[in-house]
């Protein structure tokens, strides 16, 4: 994800309106974490959530060059570096203040699983039967 986002001027309250419940809870859990740890956790989020954070100016993502100190090797793809902006830390604090909790089982994950089940069922129902 390359940094293509000019400076945004959104407030933490505005950004909060765009954050899904699960993402707000995940951000709340990062309050007080060392920046490196928080940034690593954010870099592992699903793409849709990372794109949202980047677009709203909560993160800045850069890809280190081969000459950079991250010593990108010739085999692996360059590792992207996510930096949390001051707006992100304000949002994290707001999420923590609101007491957002990480659900034991994500509602989104559960719903996705239901959809996956439906897909599997439909695939099985439409597979041609082999003669016996």
């Amino acid at each position: 994800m390359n940094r293509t986002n000019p400076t945004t001027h959104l407030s933490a309250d505005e950004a909060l309106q765009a954050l899904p419940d699960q993402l707000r809870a995940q951000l709340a859990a990062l309050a007080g974490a060392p920046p490196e740890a928080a940034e690593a956790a954010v870099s592992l989020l699903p793409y849709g959530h990372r794109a949202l954070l980047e677009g709203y100016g909560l993160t800045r993502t850069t890809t280190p060059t081969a000459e950079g100190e991250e010593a990108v090797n010739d085999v692996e793809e360059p590792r992207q570096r996510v930096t949390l902006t001051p707006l992100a830390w304000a949002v994290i604090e707001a999420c923590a203040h609101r007491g957002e909790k990480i659900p034991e089982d994500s509602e989104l994950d559960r719903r996705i699983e239901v959809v996956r089940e439906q897909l599997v069922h439909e695939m099985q129902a439409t597979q041609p039967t082999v003669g016996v």
Partner: protein
Amino acid sequence: MADSDFERAVDALFLSLRGLHDLASDDLRIVEHELGERLRRRFPAMDPADRSDVIADALVRVFTAVRQGRFDPHGSPVGYLWTATLHRAIDLTRRPSTVSLEEVSAEAHPRSDDEIVALLDADASSAHVIGAMRLAGEAGDHEVAKLAAEWLVVAERLGYAPPLREAAAAIGTSYPTLQRALSRFRGYLEQMRQAG
């Protein structure tokens, strides 16, 4: 990588979470890498994207536990972190399914950000999507940005572009709401494409 390197990096991570030590980015990288390797060995069929999700979830839970004082400082940080990771991985593998995730979407599962974006719009790139998110935010279209992000998460997890009704069900919104939101988001995407 030697186990001692992993143990030292995990110790540094836990000390930093307790505010007792600055965390070097290399240490975190070592932790993520070794957890990924251990998961790969333990769950060889697990998708790389799922491995990343498991590690992210485990790290967030460990952050929370350490900050809330639920981790015994006399305990084993490596054992605690690995147990948290293992629990998340087991949760994932226990999700009920008559066919495994790998069987459903091994070939179709996207690997890069741009491949995920292509499920939404074949002519768009990740940079376009990020720009479209920004435009939506600046226009106060926060629900549009949120639903587009959730659609992308669902598509990434499923490994294919879900029909609108399925996506709406997965996200927990109505079909017309999601349809309108994605239509508006595609408008922002088009603006980004035209802007080059």
